């Protein structure tokens, strides 16, 4: 009897201290869908940044009834994923683009005015409020902003200049002053411009415009001479760019992240098919010409991805190992994550997020607790576009990407 009682005591002690929820557990893993009960509301996220309080700031867009362009939406959530506040930014700021550019404790994004296409830089505080709107002056004052990049406190801006029919890369300060600018013709005629317009009005295909810096140059992923190409250049007048040609709007790169020198993690699309290229080497020297289908850029073909899928790439450290994480969308309407060893490009695991309703990726970021935040769009009740957030703990990542 004594042994029996001792056995029970041990079991009960083990059970009672086993698994009560705590703050760390609640913060480590969660899934959230941020819902509005407005039948006609439509929200989509553009980028997410973790704020110093370990909460998150989400830049998004929203449907406007009085403009062909998207409105701007900001949301602040806490470290447990709970909703704190949101802001339906007034309609004088439309066509917002990511990423959220963080410098000196402030967050910035580019948008434009609905009339006149005046580009403006919006300063956002960590609580999701717009603290300042700065009109961009100089060459970058007018156009359709397409992509941005934080270049050590100044911002690279890729925009479409509809007057000159050019893809233009600008360097803009936080005061909104354009300090450098260089344009690249998209080609004569209206064919390419039509695709720009449907992209900006979100009535057609969303192109993976991107601008960044690598190997001492800036690069942009956008239209150049009729093709959706990857272009490496600098601002010197007489420099000749290096070009990795795409094929019209049918083929090109869907995401690029510089790793080391001319080594990149990339993904490409070709007539709807998608390829992940964890160890891409681009020829970035002046006047180099190559093609997005070159043999050394073949990569891994993923037929499970949706046609011309959105792809996001980040570097992360999981299990003490540097990895490259790809996030994309599957044909089955899930968000898929793929991990590759950063040094070797070897596949190390995958994970799928979302089910039942459609889910689409918008952005992902590593978090201060070693986890991962994946932000996307889901269609609640199969129809209402709403922002969703998956927080995956360090331990869960370690299980998925060994």
């Amino acid at each position: 009897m004594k042994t029996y009682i001792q056995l029970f005591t041990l079991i009960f002690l083990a059970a009672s201290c086993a698994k009560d929820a705590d703050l760390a557990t609640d913060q480590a893993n969660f899934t959230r869908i941020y819902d509005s009960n407005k039948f006609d509301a439509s929200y989509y996220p553009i980028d997410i940044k973790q704020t110093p309080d370990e909460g998150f700031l989400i830049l998004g867009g929203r449907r406007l009834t009085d403009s062909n362009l998207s409105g701007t939406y900001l949301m602040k959530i806490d470290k447990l994923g709970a909703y704190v506040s949101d802001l339906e930014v007034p309609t004088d700021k439309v066509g917002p683009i990511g990423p959220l550019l963080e410098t000196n404790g402030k967050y910035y994004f580019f948008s434009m005015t609905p009339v006149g296409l005046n580009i403006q830089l919006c300063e956002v505080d960590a609580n999701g409020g717009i603290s300042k709107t700065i009109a961009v002056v100089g060459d970058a004052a007018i156009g359709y902003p397409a992509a941005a990049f934080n270049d050590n406190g100044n911002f690279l801006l890729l925009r479409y200049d509809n007057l000159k029919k050019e893809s233009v890369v600008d360097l803009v300060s936080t005061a909104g002053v354009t300090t450098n600018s260089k344009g690249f013709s998209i080609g004569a005629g209206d064919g390419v411009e039509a695709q720009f317009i449907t992209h900006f009005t979100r009535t057609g295909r969303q192109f993976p415009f991107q601008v960044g810096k690598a190997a001492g140059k800036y690069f942009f992923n956008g239209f150049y001479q009729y093709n959706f190409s990857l272009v490496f250049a600098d601002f010197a007048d007489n420099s000749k760019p290096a070009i990795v040609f795409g094929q019209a709007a049918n083929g090109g790169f869907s995401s690029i992240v510089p790793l080391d020198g001319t080594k990149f993690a990339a993904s490409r699309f070709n007539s709807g098919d998608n390829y992940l290229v964890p160890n891409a080497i681009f020829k970035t020297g002046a006047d180099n010409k190559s093609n997005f289908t070159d043999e050394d850029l073949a990569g891994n073909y993923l037929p499970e991805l949706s046609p011309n899928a959105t792809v996001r790439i980040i570097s992360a450290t999981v299990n003490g190992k540097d990895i490259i994480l790809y996030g994309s969308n599957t044909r089955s309407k899930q968000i898929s994550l793929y991990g590759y060893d950063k040094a070797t490009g070897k596949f190390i695991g995958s994970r799928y997020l979302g089910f039942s309703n459609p889910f689409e990726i918008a952005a992902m970021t590593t978090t201060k607790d070693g986890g991962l935040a994946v932000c996307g769009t889901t269609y609640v009740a199969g129809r209402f576009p709403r922002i969703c957030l998956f927080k995956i703990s360090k331990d869960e990542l370690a299980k998925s990407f060994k």
Partner: protein
Amino acid sequence: MRKIYLVLLLVSVALGAQAQGKKRAAAFNANKQKANANQFIEQQWWLGFKAGINMAQADPIKRYTILTPTNYSSSLVEKKYDAFKEIGIQTTVEISYYYKGFYFSTQPSYISSTFTYSNQLQWVNATNVNEQLTQTYKQTQKVEYADLPFIIKYDITGSKLRPFVQVGIFYSLLLNAVKTVEVSSIDQATGGTNTINSEPLIVGAKDLFSSYWGLMGGIGASYQFGNVRLVLDATYRQSMSNIANPQNRFINDRLSGIGDAQDDLNLKNITISAGVLFPMRYLSSSFKSNDR
């Protein structure tokens, strides 16, 4: 069932015969035999089998949600737990040691409980009331546990019909869990009132739950029928630790996708069981196990 009964019967007869043999050898005279008999019948081992039904209710310790309202109150989408609505089953093997009116008992059980909850979502166009959708999510959660209780039971009277009270402590070992989600919608944006009932989503949910411990108390009565006892009892069981697994709260994408997050829960059960108990030893062929 018949096989179990036969096995229990054989075991009890064998143990009874063994007890009688030992007792005969020790009985020298009538007085001493009577004194020994009194001492003997103050103790007894009982072995039995019970089965019955139960009803469960889950109470949230801490609520969790996936669908997070931005422009309406979270109370509008809060899950509403039903009280003791669905019927589950349990089967029990009872092993009890009787001493002077008290039973010290363990009653290992298989218990399958079902509790339900629901919530409702609504989207409305403020400028066009014809555009609205109402969705009702009904979740049916079945959990299966192996119970290991320690119970003290006391006979209130010593007659042929013996009412008793019992209290105990138990540990419930998780065996399995299955969740069924039924979604029904009323869509008024399609030009009329469109009622949609989707096929239930049935998902294995063992990862969402864990083993737990709890306390129990109840009443019942046993009735002497020949040399066995028929027993009927009703017990209230209350978990004292969280039955959910916080680590895996959001791990099931099928459930997360439709906005279901597992709350931290306490589980309450009301069980009603009936069965039969067999004495494990007999003083003599004329001596009944209920004598004292």
